[in-house]
């Protein structure tokens, strides 16, 4: 069977599964549509949350980011997992007790203000729309690489599949497809990682293999990697970073951003009890960690594999790396997978010194003495996971599995985001703010239409990605962390926080964060309009625009408390509301509305 047929079989089978679930799990009420009826088991919800959370970027890009960034990229790992600790302790159980359907629901009711509700809706939509574009383009890339269709058809196909289960099943359909998608994506991610870890170190468990001995040279794998990359002028893989403040703030920004992202929070509204929300956060992190603990192993091993593919003599070397660096492979001897990926343009070779060999090194270092005139190879980070099975010579079905896994990761996150967007429109905007008299049936219809509209918008933006599409980390995490997270936390932990304080805080956090991002990344992300060049020298105290969400959150807290302390206390019924969300009793019979 050809590779194309195998890929088609795997992806096709996974689609049949998702559509089967969609038919089985149709939504009969708004409660089904928004929170899957509220009866999802905590472990099931943990698995769905893991798929909801792990996006095309986690599946495809993260190992590549780690491979090129080494230790310096650890902030992604800690930030995207540590957020669940604060979510489990500071938000999820209380928001579950509150017992309504959306994040703006809580902010609007707790701060007894439709202005606060509206600010929350706007933040939610900007963050989620930015996020969903990356999922659509990620699905497009996976389809076009593995199913040989154009990018455009790939995106339309992804939209159609999501439409089928999200419009009819709402959160109920999404929950159970996410469970299936989690299984597909984790199997797809783990199998090649196990093979590669076993090939390189003899230890089949990637997270242990990474810290074991590299079989061919007898040197510990990470030390081996340091030796190889430093012989080619790259920074040591395990090298410490100079700017610790920025790394701390970057990690913190991702953590508060993770905890404040509405599509993650609403997953915890689907479990029966408050205690379940806590357990479920733990299970979610277990399922996420299966991938996140494997990713650094995949990153380091794929980097070593790539290096020793180009410099075969480096593999068995113990000390003479300079000599081994003299003989990179001849371009005509490049392996088959190299050729496949050259066709996609994600690997490019340019023989600068015309010697027919591939000199792959960091040309910030001068290697004229080796007869090198510049780096000749560029490898896109994203291919490391996708090309892993081919690099390790794994059978064709593993490649088919990777195709299905990448698509599952993109679709599951897209569906969660689309639900957050559509429920903000149908529930918060239409039902709560515009037409409170709308019937249950009318709201269901509005929810389905909003979902359809959100899918069309995401498809359109996926086909014509705007400038901000690449800024998921800065924009989505920045806004969720600087605006939504502090408001939610203060709404639970402070009985004194009032409407004016919360609104002032959210706006201050949002505006400061956006101003800082725009200064370096361009005003409204229009290329060339940035006020200052986006280089570490220009950053205030060396704080990158991607790390500013944490500062934005601090500004939010400070402004909110300052304004709140000089304005009127919240009314008695709001204090009672805060008291009630703090105590678990009675969440199971949360008021339907």
């Amino acid at each position, binding site marked *: 069977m050809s590779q194309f047929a195998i890929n088609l079989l795997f992806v096709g089978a996974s689609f049949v599964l998702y559509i089967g679930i969609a038919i089985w799990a149709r939504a009969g009420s708004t409660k089904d549509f928004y929170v899957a009826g509220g009866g999802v088991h905590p472990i099931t919800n943990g698995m769905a949350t893991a798929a909801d959370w792990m996006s095309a970027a986690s599946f495809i890009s993260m190992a590549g980011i*780690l491979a090129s960034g080494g*230790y310096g990229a*650890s902030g992604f*790992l*800690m930030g995207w*997992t*540590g957020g*669940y*600790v*604060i979510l*489990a*302790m*500071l938000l999820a*159980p209380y928001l579950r007790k509150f017992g309504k359907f959306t994040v703006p629901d809580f902010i609007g009711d707790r701060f007894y203000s439709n202005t606060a509700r509206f600010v929350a809706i706007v933040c939610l939509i900007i963050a989620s729309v930015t996020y969903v574009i990356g999922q659509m383009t990620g699905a497009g890339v996976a389809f076009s690489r593995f199913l040989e269709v154009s990018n455009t058809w790939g995106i339309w196909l992804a939209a159609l599949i999501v439409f089928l289960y999200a419009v009819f099943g709402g959160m109920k359909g999404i929950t159970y497809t996410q469970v299936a998608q989690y299984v597909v994506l984790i199997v797809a991610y783990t199998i090649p990682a196990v093979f590669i870890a076993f090939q390189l170190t003899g230890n089949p468990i990637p*997270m242990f293999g*990474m*810290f*074991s*001995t590299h079989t061919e040279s007898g*040197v*510990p*794998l*990470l*030390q*081996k990697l340091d030796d190889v990359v430093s012989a080619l002028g790259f920074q040591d893989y*395990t090298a*410490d970073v100079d700017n*610790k403040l920025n*790394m*701390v703030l970057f*990690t*913190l920004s991702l953590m508060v951003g993770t905890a404040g992202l509405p599509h993650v929070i609403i997953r915890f509204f689907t479990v029966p*009890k*408050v*205690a379940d929300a*806590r*357990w479920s*956060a*733990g299970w979610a*992190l*277990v399922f996420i*960690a299966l991938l*996140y*603990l494997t990713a*650094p192993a995949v990153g380091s091993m794929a980097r070593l594999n790539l290096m020793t593919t180009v410099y075969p003599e480096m593999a068995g070397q113990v000390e003479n790396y300079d000599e081994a660096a003299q003989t990179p492979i001849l371009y005509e001897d490049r392996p088959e997978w190299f050729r496949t990926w050259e066709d996609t343009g994600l690997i490019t070779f340019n023989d600068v010194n015309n010697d027919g060999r591939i000199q792959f090194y960091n040309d910030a270092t001068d290697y004229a003495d080796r007869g090198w005139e510049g780096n000749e190879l560029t490898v896109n980070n994203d291919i490391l996971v996708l090309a892993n099975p081919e690099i390790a010579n794994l059978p064709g079905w593993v490649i088919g599995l990777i195709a299905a896994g990448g698509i599952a990761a993109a679709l599951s996150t897209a569906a969660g985001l689309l639900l957050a967007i559509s429920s903000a429109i149908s529930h918060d905007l239409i039902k709560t703010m515009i037409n409170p008299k709308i019937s249950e049936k009318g709201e269901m219809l509005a929810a389905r239409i909003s979902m359809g509209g959100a899918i069309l918008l995401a498809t359109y933006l996926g086909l014509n990605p705007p400038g901000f599409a690449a800024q998921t980390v800065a924009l989505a995490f920045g806004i969720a962390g600087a605006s939504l997270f502090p408001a939610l936390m203060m709404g639970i*932990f402070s009985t004194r926080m009032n409407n004016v304080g919360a609104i002032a805080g959210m706006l201050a956090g949002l505006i400061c964060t956006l101003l800082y991002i725009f200064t370096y990344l361009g005003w409204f992300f229009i290329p060339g309009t940035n006020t200052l060049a986006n280089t570490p020298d220009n950053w205030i105290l060396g704080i990158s625009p991607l790390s500013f969400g944490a500062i934005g959150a601090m500004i939010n807290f400070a402004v909110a408390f300052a304004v709140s302390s000089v304005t009127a206390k919240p009314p008695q019924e709001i204090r009672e509301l805060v*008291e009630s969300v*703090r*105590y*678990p*009793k*009675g*969440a*199971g019979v949360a008021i339907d509305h």
Partner: protein
Amino acid sequence: MADDKSNAAEYWKANVRLIFGCLVVWAFVSYGCAILFRPILANIPVGGTDLGFWFAQQGSILTFIVLIFFYAWRMNKLDQKFGLGE
């Protein structure tokens, strides 16, 4: 009613104390061991690198999992003790 109130306030205080303790550990492993104290831990070797690197790419994540389950378990006990569970 007065008893209920003081009981509930007691429960909330215990919860906040527990959260604070958990977050100290959370910050210690991630911002501490993995980032700020890495130079101090540089002499403790772990499989070809140092302890700080291990915390940054493995140890902190494992600790996070333990923290959430620990918190969920302690809170269940608190819920029962104060009769606030479901």
